[in-house]
């Protein structure tokens, strides 16, 4: 999963980003097919999360309510994905679960990225002992086995609430980005535009926020997407194992109940597979955007047009 995000720090665009940001980024996304597909998927999920009622107008009240319908119905026109062993409509639950899964992804992604930026950029810019200490810390978190650590933490935290899951995801998800941002920051340190800011007598905080950070926009965005992808998959895995809140409305929890009530064994594949497919699609949208960002920020990786196929051995 994380290997996807490998990006050569020197290949990344380090031009001052202000010029490019205006329209440049959105044009770049729209002209890249992978990015467009990823963005469209993500927007669809945002829509589902914001207005679930639009997509299941017939749903009255909480879709978790037990015994609304007959139990264990196969998919039909009235119940598109069938019903659960407790008489809930699988499709309605699926739509309503989008919100929590998306919130976990975005909040954990943002939190992890914020810590990566803070630690990575300060390490690169401060240098010396501070850099040594911070990169040591990053290195330690980078090699700690994350999924086992998360499971251990979630077990001790008492099979936790949404907050616990998010905090654990942030705590284990920031190191990769911090490492990349530090490398990028180091390559910037002696650039002329930073030198001139220093000569102008700007404060350190000003230089970091106004001069350094904008040049890293694409890398920070890529990191956010990677962290969000990681959060989606890991949160779903945790909840699937029963380490989330079993009464919450999320795809992972749906999977947990489907597995618990033997959906696969008793012949209800739609019930068992649909929530996982939703997780997969949200993950795919982040991964597509992330890969497209790699292509946008590293022109060497852009797809070659078919007409002038260039073989390395020709």
């Amino acid at each position: 999963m994380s290997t996807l995000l490998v990006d050569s720090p020197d290949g990344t665009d380090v031009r001052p980003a202000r010029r490019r940001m205006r329209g440049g980024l959105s044009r770049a996304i729209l002209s890249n097919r992978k990015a467009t597909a990823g963005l469209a998927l993500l927007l669809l999920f945002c829509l589902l999360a914001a207005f679930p009622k639009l997509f299941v107008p017939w749903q009255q009240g909480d879709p978790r309510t037990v015994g609304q319908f007959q139990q264990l119905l196969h998919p039909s026109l009235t119940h598109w994905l069938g019903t659960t062993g407790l008489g809930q409509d699988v499709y309605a639950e699926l739509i309503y679960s989008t919100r929590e899964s998306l919130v976990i992804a975005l909040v954990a992604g943002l939190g992890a990225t914020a810590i990566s930026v803070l630690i990575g950029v300060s390490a690169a810019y401060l240098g010396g002992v501070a850099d040594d200490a911070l990169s040591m810390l990053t290195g330690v978190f980078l090699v700690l086995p994350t999924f086992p650590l998360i499971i251990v933490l979630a077990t001790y935290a008492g099979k936790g609430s949404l907050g616990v899951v998010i905090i654990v995801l942030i705590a284990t998800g920031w190191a990769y980005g911090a490492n990349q941002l530090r490398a990028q920051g180091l390559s910037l340190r002696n650039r002329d535009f930073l030198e001139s800011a220093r000569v102008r007598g700007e404060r350190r905080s000003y230089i970091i926020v106004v001069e350094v950070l904008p040049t890293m926009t694409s890398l920070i965005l890529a990191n956010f997407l990677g962290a969000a992808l990681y959060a989606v998959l890991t949160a779903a895995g945790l909840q699937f194992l029963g380490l989330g809140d079993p009464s919450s409305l999320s795809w992972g929890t749906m999977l947990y109940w489907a597995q618990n009530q033997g959906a696969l064994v008793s012949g209800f594949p739609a019930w068992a597979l649909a929530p996982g497919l939703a997780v997969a699609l949200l993950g795919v949208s982040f991964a597509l955007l992330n890969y497209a960002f790699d292509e946008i920020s590293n022109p060497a990786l852009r797809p070659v047009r078919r007409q002038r196929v260039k073989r390395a051995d020709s």
Partner: protein
Amino acid sequence: MRFLLRRLGFFVLTLWAAMTINFLIPHMMPGSPAQVLKAKLNHSGRIASPEQLNALLASFGFDPHAGLFDQYVTYMKDMVTFNWGVSIGGSSLGASVTSMIRQALPWTLGLVGVATIMAFIIGTLIGIVAGWRRGGLLDGIVPPVFVVTSALPYFWVALLSIVLFANGAHALLPNDGNYDLGLHPQWSGQFIGSVLTHAILPAGTILITAIGGWILTMRNNTITTLAEDYVRMARAKGLPSRRIMFDYAARNALLPNLSGFAMSLGYVIGGTILVEYVFNYPGLGHMFYLATAGTDYPLLQALFMLVTVAVLVCVLLADFAIFLLDPRARAKG
């Protein structure tokens, strides 16, 4: 030499940090192992007096009167000397953690280890070819397909493969356990065949989800390396393209992936928790799940320590390998 010493120092420090975290987490969280054990023993209704309870707790390795630091020293000593205590899980109450792990380890090593190595080798080869024939047919299909597969959740691929191949009365493949229930472990064709058919679906799941990352990074690394001057030089010398591809481009493109591969090898010890859980495969990953479900702290602690040590050792070995293979790393050190 300085490079190696630095890496060794990092290894020791990280190991210490991980072991300390492993020790501290249960002490900082609500619900201590001792309480869980107390509850379990009380539940079974056999414990009468507090003295008896304390005696039993002590036999499980919890001394209620020891200070935090003393406990820390004892814990460190126990971990290093393979004295990992006894399980307090539901069905395995009182079993020795070391022997439980010894039983599950070969299954995980065989299944997850082989699948991980295969994913790396196959993925790297496909990545080299896709990067080399930039814009060719393979390169047109590979990136989008594997961006998608690398974002699929392990457990979902596992569930899907069960629906497709191992569901209903006419199942093609088994989906549960490591060999048929009626068989006994022995070197017979029937037993080995049973082990292999039980491994196909879990191994396939790991292969499908792990291979994408290797293909994509290797493709991108190859493309970046192909722009280097030494590749142009090799072409100018008129070397055969197969040689340029493997000896010039691929060799250098592989270096950045080595430490990633080392880490994934280390993770093998932890098993693939979600895959082993779905397929009920009795490896270390499944044991991890059982330890969580039964709040079996000693088992959980030993398993986590084992995974961390494995990852760290593999990363250290990768550092040494890079030192040997890459003159630039030697020059820097």
